[in-house]
């Protein structure tokens, strides 16, 4: 029977980072991916915050398949036909450890998995692992169709639905309120057109988030990132809201795509591909435990995903948690074994790498973001206020404060309610 010291399931950012860290530390590691190639099953937006990569591979930028560094952040509130946006222009966002970049996940994941392989991990693709193998009650490997491969410790980095975490009893079955549905399409534009349209230099990129009508006023939001010669355009919408309102995500995406503010940005583009997947929303609330005897969770599988409205974070937390998992294992190894007690250091390492600190800072954000008024009433309200303020048609202009009060009243939101929402937001963010 084949035996490894560690088996990492899932060659996404979390799994590859973990396998990389383990292999570097001399741990005999197997990295198993269900897709035919790493990244094949990935879809998410493709915007990556680089700080954990700096820590992991200082010269990563040398061969990492980066499309563009994000130097312009945009946040827009959409009504049905208008948009109110805020732009933050900062070329300095494109350099240093705080830089973020856009990338194709297919290429990025393949690159990271290659790094793990080069470090000495064995990568196997095309095999779906959905069960842990237990010996004497503790995790002792993985099992697929009766075929068992042994390991002293197993890392589940198999994504948001983590079959493995469920088989190990660390998580229950998913319920719709824990997930959002993500869709993404890649729109091709000639590089010159793209750079002119978004006013970008060769390496610069722009990132947009959209609230309000983007998600048909359901909880969620839209995003758009610029790659070299394509745009990643997508939506993340609460699957609970979709179910309750009997709305198809495709219909929402269709409307989003045709919104004047979006149509203008994608005009003349050709849709190259379309994909959908589940995005965990509850963060830490979803997986109270991240380790057990001989077993660790990393990345989306552990719910390490942060959606605070103005940023979606996942890949960076995945990489950081993968590295923390690798370090926890090497420490447990030194301590004499992979018992839950020895692996408990994982939680501290997650904190040190800012994974759980950031998640805890924004721990209330998912619940705050569940407030439906944020997605329906307020974006509309803001647009109506802006419309009144900027419409000068000779009927007389009013003061901004008057307009705001009148519009809030028209929207049937009490000033107290609005104040509470604002305070709630400030606390959560």
């Amino acid at each position, binding site marked *: *029977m*084949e035996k490894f010291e560690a088996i990492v399931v899932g060659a996404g950012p979390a799994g590859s980072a973990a396998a990389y860290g383990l292999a570097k530390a001399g741990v005999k590691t*197997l990295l198993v991916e269900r897709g035919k190639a790493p990244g094949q099953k990935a879809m998410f937006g493709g915007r990556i915050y680089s700080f954990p990569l700096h820590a992991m591979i200082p010269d990563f930028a040398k061969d990492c398949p980066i499309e563009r560094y994000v130097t312009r952040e945009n946040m827009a509130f959409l009504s049905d036909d208008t948009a109110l946006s805020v732009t933050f222009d900062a070329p300095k966002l494109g350099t240093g450890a705080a830089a973020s970049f856009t990338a194709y996940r297919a290429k990025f994941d393949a690159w990271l998995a290659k790094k793990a392989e080069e470090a000495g991990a064995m990568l*196997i693709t095309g095999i779906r692992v959905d069960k842990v193998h237990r010996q004497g009650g503790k995790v002792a490997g993985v099992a697929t169709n009766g075929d*068992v491969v042994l390991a002293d410790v197993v890392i589940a980095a198999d994504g948001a639905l983590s079959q493995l975490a469920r088989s190990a009893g660390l998580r229950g079955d998913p319920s719709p309120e824990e997930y959002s549905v993500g869709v993404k399409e890649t729109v091709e534009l000639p590089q010159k057109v793209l750079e002119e349209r978004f006013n970008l230099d060769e390496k610069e990129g722009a990132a947009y988030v959209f609230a309000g009508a983007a998600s048909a006023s359901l909880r969620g939001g839209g995003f758009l990132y610029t790659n070299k010669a394509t745009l990643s355009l997508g939506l993340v919408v609460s699957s609970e809201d979709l179910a309750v309102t009997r709305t198809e995500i495709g219909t929402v995406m269709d409307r989003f795509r045709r919104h004047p503010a979006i149509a203008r940005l994608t005009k003349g583009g050709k849709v190259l591909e379309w994909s959908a997947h589940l995005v965990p929303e509850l963060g830490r609330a979803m997986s109270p435990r991240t380790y057990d005897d001989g077993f660790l969770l990393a990345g989306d599988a552990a719910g390490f995903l942060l959606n605070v409205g103005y940023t979606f974070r996942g890949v960076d937390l995945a990489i950081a948690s993968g590295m923390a998992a690798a370090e926890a294992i090497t420490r447990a190894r030194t301590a004499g074994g992979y018992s839950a007690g020895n692996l408990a250091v994982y939680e501290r390492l997650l904190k040190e790498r800012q994974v759980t600190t950031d998640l805890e800072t924004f721990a209330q954000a998912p619940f705050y973001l569940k407030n439906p008024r944020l997605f329906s009433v307020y974006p509309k309200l803001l647009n109506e206020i802006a419309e009144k303020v900027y419409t000068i048609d000779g009927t007389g202009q009013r003061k901004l404060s008057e307009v705001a009060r009148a519009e809030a009243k028209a929207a049937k939101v009490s000033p107290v309610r609005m104040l509470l929402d604002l305070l709630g937001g400030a606390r959560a963010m």
Partner: protein
Amino acid sequence: MAPGPRSIVCIKQVPKAQELQVDPVTNTLKRVGVPSEINPPDRNALEMALQVKDQFGGEVFVLTMGPPVFTSALEEALAMGCDRAFLLTDRILGGSDTVPTAHSLSETIHKIGGYQLIFCGEETTDASTGHVGPGIAGHLDCAQITYCSEVQFLGNRVRGKRSVEDGFETWECPLPCVITANFLSNRPRPPSLSGKIRVKRGGLITTWSCADVGIDPGKVGIRNSPTIVAKVDTVVLPDRKAKIFRGEPKAAVTALLDAMAADGVLSR
């Protein structure tokens, strides 16, 4: 019980049939860049051999003849559970029809030696001749059971259930014997994680040239193939401009029947 047999399974890598498309401009088949796979009936042959091994022990070797890219087919067969693999690869083999192919495979099987069973798929999906399996038996002057859907190893003999037009014949043959597996006669197992790990560890594939095996260059390749493909005509089916219905079954069926009724297809 007598020790299990050594089986050698001959496989081929073929273009995926469903990916083959006729170029609308040139009216010829587009083959460049078409993904390839193990010839589907060969998977049934592999499964048949592996089942014999599951039941009686022994070992399963896999053999292919073709360019080095055929290694991926061998790797998949190994990951399914084969013990060793052999790749016969040589430029001089290019363009071989079934006569040199059967010859070269037979010579290679002879060199491997020690075999009791030889398995092939009933035919390949890209050439559809079904001649290579019986051709190998002819060359090796051994028994053959073609179009088999079940095999039973009897120690010093083999029994095969053979599917023919009007029924099923059960043949019993001495060893060695060539068995060709009926397409879809079993459910080929997927590659396993352990199998893929073994492949990754390496050392399971032996690569031979014609010289390594001792194959006479005057017997193989396009120049020593009796048949040639003189030309290929493309068959183009008329476009019926299909109306396609999808979605919730009840509504889709109603829409389909309405359309058929409107076109007068349902009236008698």
